[in-house]
C-alpha cells in the first residue's frame, strides 16, 4: 500500500512527549523518521519507567508507543565530529524537528539560520513551551502550561480544586498541532522549493484547545472562565445524571418533543407539570428539573436506563471507564487500538492506533520504538555514505558509540 508521506525524511531531535508525538504522526503515515539521541541514555522519555512517575506495565509503553515506526541514531553532538554527522543528515533531510529550547539549539549550532544554510529546502520545526516570541523561556511541562491557559480553572463543581484534562493531554494536543504545521510546510515547499521555520508551542496549542470557552470570555462572558455546577446547566436535557451504578450523559435539545421522550423513558409524567412545560420554563426552572430527573435516574441501573432510552430514541451514553473502552468494539474496528510486536517482552502488545483514517493511504504501525542507536551504523553507511574506515574513526573519537 502506498504511504502519504513516503519519501519525506524527518530528523526527530525531541524528548519526552509532545515532540515525539508530532513525529509519530509523520512516521505513521510513512515518513522516514530518524530519532537523534545522545549515546548516554538517549531520550529522557526512555527513563520514565525507572522514575515510577506513571503507571506502567511490564514493557516501556510510554516511550515505545510514541516513538513507533522510527529509527534511532546515537550521536554525541557535543563533539565536532558528531555535529558533522548531523549536518550531513540535514543535507539529506526534509524536516528537522526539536522540542529543545531555541536557546539550547543555538548553543549547539543547530539554529534555523545555520541549518537552512546547509539545506535551504529544510523545514525547521520547534515545539517551544510558550512560543518563539516574547522572551519567556521557563521550563514547560504539559500541566504547568495547561495551568496558565485557564482551561483547568473552569472545570469541576464550584469550590472544588481545578481539574487537569488528563495525563499528557496538553502534549498530545501540542503534538498534533506541530504535525499539522509541518504537513502544511511540506505542502508549501513542494510548490515553492523553499523551506521555512515554524513553531507550535504548548501554550499556543492549549489556548486554542480552550477556544469555545476562551473566545466567549474574550467577548465579555466572564462566567465562561468559572466553574459551573452540573446542577445548574441551562438545558437540563443536555447533562449528566447518576444511576445506581454508572453515570449517563443525555444529549437532547430542550424541546417539548424530546422532553416527552425523556419522560416516557423514565416512566414519569414530569411533562405534565406546569413549571416544566415549554422550553423557556424548563430553562427557568432548570435547577428543579435537574433535581427531579436525577431523583428518577438514580433509582435505575445504567443498563436499565440505557435500554429505556434506546426504546425511546433518547440520545445518550453511559459514562464508561477505561476497562470498558479497551473492550469497545468500535475502537478496535476503526484501528483506534491495534496490536504490535514488542521486542522487549517478545510478544504482541496492544497499542493506541490511528485516530486519523486515510482511505487510500492509511497509517500503519510496523515497529514499536527503536532501541537506542540501533540504526546508527546502517544510516552512517547507506544514508550518509561514510566509508567503513571513516565510521571507525568517528567511533574512535566518541562521536558515535
Amino acid at each position: 500500500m502506498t504511504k502519504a508521506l513516503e519519501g519525506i525524511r524527518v530528523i526527530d531531535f525531541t524528548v519526552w512527549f509532545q515532540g515525539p508525538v508530532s513525529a509519530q504522526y509523520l512516521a505513521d503515515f510513512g515518513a522516514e523518521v530518524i530519532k537523534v539521541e545522545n549515546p548516554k541514555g538517549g531520550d529522557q522519555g526512555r527513563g520514565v519507567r525507572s522514575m515510577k512517575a506513571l503507571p506502567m506495565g511490564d514493557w516501556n509503553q510510554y516511550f515505545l508507543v510514541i516513538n513507533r515506526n522510527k529509527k534511532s541514531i546515537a550521536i554525541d553532538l557535543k563533539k565536532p565530529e558528531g555535529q558533522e554527522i548531523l549536518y550531513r543528515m540535514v543535507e539529506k533531510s526534509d524536516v528537522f524537528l526539536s522540542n529543545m529550547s531555541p536557546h539550547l539549539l543555538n548553543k549547539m549550532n543547530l539554529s534555523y539560520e545555520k541549518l537552512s544554510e546547509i539545506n535551504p529546502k529544510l523545514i525547521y520545526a520547534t515545539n517551544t513551551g510558550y512560543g518563539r516570541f516574547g522572551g519567556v523561556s521557563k521550563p514547560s511541562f504539559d500541566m504547568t502550561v495547561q495551568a496558565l491557559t485557564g482551561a483547568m480553572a473552569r472545570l469541576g463543581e464550584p469550590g472544588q480544586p481545578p481539574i487537569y484534562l488528563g495525563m499528557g493531554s496538553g502534549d498530545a494536543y501540542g503534538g498534533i498541532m506541530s504535525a499539522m504545521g509541518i504537513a502544511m510546510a511540506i505542502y508549501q515547499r513542494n510548490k515553492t522549493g523553499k523551506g521555512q521555520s515554524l513553531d507550535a508551542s504548548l501554550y499556543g496549542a492549549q489556548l486554542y484547545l480552550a477556544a469555545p470557552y476562551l473566545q466567549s470570555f474574550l467577548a465579555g462572558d466572564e462566567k465562561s472562565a468559572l466553574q459551573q455546577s452540573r446542577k445548574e446547566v441551562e438545558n437540563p436535557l443536555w447533562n449528566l445524571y447518576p444511576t445506581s451504578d454508572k453515570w449517563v450523559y443525555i444529549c437532547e435539545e430542550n424541546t417539548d418533543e424530546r422532553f416527552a421522550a425523556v419522560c416516557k423513558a423514565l416512566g414519569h409524567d414530569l411533562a405534565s407539570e406546569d413549571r416544566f412545560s415549554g422550553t423557556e420554563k424548563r430553562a427557568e426552572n432548570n435547577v428543579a428539573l435537574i433535581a427531579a430527573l436525577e431523583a428518577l435516574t438514580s433509582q435505575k441501573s445504567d443498563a436499565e436506563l440505557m435500554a429505556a432510552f434506546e426504546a425511546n430514541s433518547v440520545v445518550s451514553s453511559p459514562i464508561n471507564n477505561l476497562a470498558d473502552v479497551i473492550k469497545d468494539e468500535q475502537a478496535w474496528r476503526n484501528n483506534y487500538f491495534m496490536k504490535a510486536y514488542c521486542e522487549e517482552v517478545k510478544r504482541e502488545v496492544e497499542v493506541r492506533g490511528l485516530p486519523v483514517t486515510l482511505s487510500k493511504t492509511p497509517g500503519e504501525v510496523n515497529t514499536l520504538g527503536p532501541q537506542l542507536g540501533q540504526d546508527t551504523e546502517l544510516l552512517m553507511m547507506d544514508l550518509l555514505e561514510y566509508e567503513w574506515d571513516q565510521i571507525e574513526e568517528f567511533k574512535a573519537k566518541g562521536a558515535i558509540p
Partner: protein
Amino acid sequence: MSGALDDVIVLDLTNSFSSSLSAAFLADFGGQVIRLDLLPQTHTKAQKTNSHKEGTWNHEADLIHRNKQSVALDPNTEQGCKLLAELVDKADVLVTDWQLADLQALALDYDTVCKSNPGIIFGRISGFGPEGPDKDLPAIDELAAARTGMMPILQQPDQPPVYTGAGKMHAMVMLCFGVVTALIHRQATGEGQQVDTSLFAANMYGASLDLQAFLAINEDDPQRDRLLNPISRLDVSNPISGSLYPSSDGRWVTLTMPDTDRWWPLLAPEVGIDVNDERFDSHEKRCETNRLALIEELEAGFQKQSGSHWRAVFAEKQMSADVIEQFDYPSDDPQVKANRYIMELDHPSHGKVKSLGFPIFMSESPARLERLAPCIGQHTEKVLHELLGYSEDAIYQFTTDGTIA
C-alpha cells in the same frame, strides 16, 4: 509571502463549532474556503451561532467562519442542485460533519462526489469512525467523551464525572492534519481520498497516557484500580509531580517535577522543610514510605504564601511549577500577544475587541486574518462568476428565481 494552502479550494459543509473551526483553520493558512450556506435561511443575513445574542458581537462566528467566503444557494431547486455539483467539482477539499444520509440526500457523499471529481479530498469529522456498528451515531462530543473512559477519573473522589470539551478541538486539528497529509499525497500522485477522524478517536488521543497504560497493565495488577477511580489530590503517587496545592489567596499551584532527587533540594527550603529531614531524604521515602506525610507538609507549606509569591519562587528557581490561572491571565499576558495566540482587532461594528489568534507560527507562510465572518451569501455572485464562469445576466436570473442569495 504566500499562504501555505493558497492554491487549495475548500468547500465548508459544517454545522458544529469545532468542524467549522477546522475549515477556518485551513483558511487561516491561505485556503480559499467557501462556506455553503444552504437556503432557505431564516430572515437574517448574519451567520447563526449558538451563543449569539442580537446586538452584541457575534464572537463565535468571527472565530469559526473567519477568512471564509459564503455562497448561499437552494439545493432543492434543479438549478441550485446543478450549481452545487459544479462547486463540488471545482473543490480540492470538502470538509463536513454531516451524517452520511444527509450527504446522500444532496448527492454530496464521497461515492457520488468522487465519480466526477476523483481528486477530491473528502474530510469528515464523524462521531465514532467510518467502520463498525456505531459508525452512524451522531457526531456529538459529549457522547464520544462518555465512551472514552476518562470522564469518571479526572475529578476528585465523590465528585461527578467531568466533560472537558477538549476532544472536539483535538478532532478538528486531526482532521486538518489528515487533509493536508492527503493533499501531499495528491501532489505526488494526483489521487484523492477520504479522510475521517472521529470525536471518539480524538477523545481517546487526548487521554493517551492513561489509556495506553491501561492497555499495557495486566488485569491482576493493582495499578489498574488507580486508573479506574478518581485519585484524591492528597493521595497522588508523586507529591511533587501532578499535584495541586492551595495557596493563601485561594489560587492553586501545580508542580511537575517527577525527578524528585533533582528538585527536592531547591523546593524543600521554600516550603519550610529541612532538606535533610530524614523522613524525606530519598526519592523512595518521598514517593513511597512517607508520601502521605510529605503531601500533608506541602499542603500546609504552600498555604503560607500567596499565588504571586509562588510564581516568583518558581521563576527564580526555574522550577517546572506554576499557578493555576483563569482566562483573564492569558487574555492579558504579553507573551500571548507577542505570539498572536490572542489578537486585538478593530471590529467594524464593535470597535477594539480581542479574539483568538493562531496556534502555529510559520516564518514564510504565516496565518493571517483577512476578513471576519462573511454574511450569508456575501460571496455568491463573486464565486459563481470567478470560479464557475457564470455571466452577470445568468447570476441575475438565479437571484430572481430564488436559486441563490
